[in-house]
């Protein structure tokens, strides 16, 4: 014993770290990544590798430019930019090899402009992966849509080998499942359904989600609320046609968004009551936007709702233990008002 350490209380701490949480998210994304690679092959692999590499490299280059010691950077590296890069890649279609610059530029935008510019981990206002995807969609809209290819497995129900179209959801929102020629099971497994690399195989996403819930990284209520509200509002918008529920829940990037994007710590509210409000609103906004635009809008909805998180944090807070219950507080206020009014009247007379 040469030195003693002086630190602030408590001296015992849970072993979990930010790095550990991010590693858990990466592990939870493995099934979806594998499914994407199996379904879409080499093009998916290149897109994912490029986006992860450019995201991580952007963080390193940024910190090097700020003259941070390389060893310190390695020590500080908490996998957040790797998660960003992987999520960004998973929300992209399996792009043609000639379009290599799209994942690279999106990764640079996501980490450089959305995360590092605002101060790095924990300081970003919107989810970097979502912002990167939206950036790609707006900047390279033509190329992004041309990137859709059918997965390696055809539809289980109709046997359609090739399904032509931007995304089944677009047609779904217009015409329903029959028009597309896929079943709910197809949507669930991602067979015969083109889409983004990570979003087609729902079973892989749900497996990842269960892992995150089991590891207590996310709370199961939040994605469930989001998904359920989106489905219900979609049903309601279509004139209570319950056949719309499953396709609108399983189609598109809703489950990927709900499990991995909307639950991002930094860009979701920091307490339970505000989170419930946030996820309900998110579901409503997603369903309404889908209904209005007839395209897949999960990322846009999350991006929009990220912006009101500070507002929710500031105004919706749990009441401290022992505080007067809200109902009683309101009653007391009304009574006090009455009493003062009576007093005023008495004074007036």
């Amino acid at each position, binding site marked *: *014993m040469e*030195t*003693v*350490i*002086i*630190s*602030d*209380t*408590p*001296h*015992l*701490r*849970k072993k*979990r*770290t*930010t790095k*550990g*949480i991010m590693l858990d998210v990466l592990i939870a994304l493995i099934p979806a990544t594998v499914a994407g690679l199996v379904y879409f092959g080499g093009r998916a692999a290149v897109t994912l590798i490029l986006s992860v590499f450019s995201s991580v490299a952007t963080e390193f280059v940024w910190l090097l430019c700020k003259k941070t010691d390389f060893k310190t950077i390695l020590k*500080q590296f*908490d996998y957040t930019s790797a998660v960003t890069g992987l999520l960004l890649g998973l929300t992209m279609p399996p792009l043609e090899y000639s379009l290599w610059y799209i994942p690279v530029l999106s990764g640079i935008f996501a980490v450089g402009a959305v995360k590092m510019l605002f*101060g*790095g*981990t*924990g*300081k970003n206002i919107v989810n970097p992966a979502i912002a990167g995807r939206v950036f790609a969609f707006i900047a390279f809209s033509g190329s992004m849509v041309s990137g859709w290819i059918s997965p390696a497995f055809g539809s289980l129900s109709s046997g359609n080998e090739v399904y032509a179209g931007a995304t089944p959801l677009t047609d779904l929102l217009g015409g329903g499942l029959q028009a597309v020629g896929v079943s709910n099971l197809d949507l669930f497994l991602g067979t015969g359904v083109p889409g983004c690399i990570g979003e087609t195989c729902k079973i892989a996403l749900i497996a990842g989600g269960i892992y995150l819930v089991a590891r207590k990284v996310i709370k199961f209520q939040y994605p469930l609320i989001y998904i359920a509200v989106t489905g219900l509002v979609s049903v309601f918008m279509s004139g209570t046609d319950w056949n719309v529920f499953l396709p609108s829940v399983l189609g598109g990037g809703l489950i990927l968004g709900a499990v991995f994007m909307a639950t991002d*710590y*930094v*860009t*979701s*509210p*920091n*307490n*339970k009551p505000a*989170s419930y409000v946030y996820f309900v609103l998110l579901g409503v906004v997603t369903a309404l936007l889908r209904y209005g635009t007839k395209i897949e809008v999960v990322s846009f909805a999350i991006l929009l709702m990220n912006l009101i998180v500070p507002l929710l*944090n*500031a105004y919706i*807070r*749990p*009441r*401290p*233990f*022992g*505080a*007067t219950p809200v109902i009683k507080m309101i009653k007391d206020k009304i009574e006090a008002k009455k009493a003062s009014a009576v007093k005023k009247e008495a004074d007036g007379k």
Partner: protein
Amino acid sequence: MNLKIKKGKPFFRGIHVPDRKELARDRAIEVFDAPSVATIALSQHIGKPSEPAVKAGDYVGMGQLIGKKSGFIGANIFSSVSGTVLGIEKRQSVNGITGDYVVIENDRLDKAVFLEPLKDREKETIISRITEAGIVGMGGAGFPVDVKLSPKTPVDTLVINAAECEPYLTCDFRLMVEKTEEVLIGIRLLAKALGVENICIGIEKNKPEAIELFSKAEDMQTVVLKKAYPMGSEKHLIYCCTGRKVPTGKLPADAGCVVQNIATAYAVYEAVEKNKPLYERVMTVSGDGAENPGNFLVRNGTSYSEISEKCGVKENVKMFVSGGPMMGPAMLSTDVYTTKTSSGFLMLTEKEADTNAPTPCINCGACADVCPMKLLPMQIDFYTQAGDYEKAEKIGGVKNCISCGSCAYVCPAKRALVQSITLCKAKLAEKRGGK
């Protein structure tokens, strides 16, 4: 099924810390050697430091008054050894605060100078005896007991805090098991002084022996509490035992309850029945870094380095903590001295004690999920770092914080949340004091 045992109301928040009580829980209380030089602090409690009642060269007996209570909130201080006063010197406390200490050379004769025996056991007699014997809350805060026993609002329940939710500490548990009768008498005396019939004893589930012993007492209700930290917090203990909530910004007495600790009850027993003033207490020495962990009856003014020498310090010790690991301060050196509130001395190894550097907050909300007061520690930290203390109070609710450290325990970014909260509280108090 014993009707005297009741399950506590559920306590949803808080944290589950590995309690590590097995290190010292089966070690019987041993009498620790009296120090050759006792260095007794004149400020061992919340409130004004006591005024020295002796001067250099005086001869004092064991249990003689050496510090006189000054002010309403204060307590008498007694010599823990017999011998000659060497002087009144400046020393550091475990928190690193410099104060006056009476230094007494021990002549090893232990000439006892105790209080006069009491004629009766009436309410006023007991309270004046508690004042006389300098008894303070021995759970850690050191609030004078006589003040707590004279509440301004009517009180109908005495809640005994036997939760001992701090990890490692077992001193209260040992007292409950070894001195059951004495502690029960102390509790009855406290109830009498308070003038209440209703007594609740809150014991955490991890002390089945104590629950069994205490549930035999006919006139008390034993409440079995879930094992959670911070169960021993007054407000949460009251809620779990009686179902009442202490209103924010109010005292437990406003909910009709007064909370006292097991060690305090034992001190009251000794003062009333044995006429012995408070100059020693049971202390847990534990931690992976201690070669011989255990529970010791330590006299006030014993140096921590003497204790560490006797108990043996392993090579890999990285941190010394006075009190429990969740709320006790880490010590700069072991050349500090025990007081009435020293409930533990922990020697933590690198593996046990967290020494990670803080990283940016990722807004995960874990702190808000566990906060037993339902506050938003991350917001307090954020606004305190920005220097906006008013906002920290408004949005984070810092004034309701009980400084239990649950938030910092779970924080994955290892942020110094308690430090921010303490700073914020101090700044707010400063501001209010200035006005």
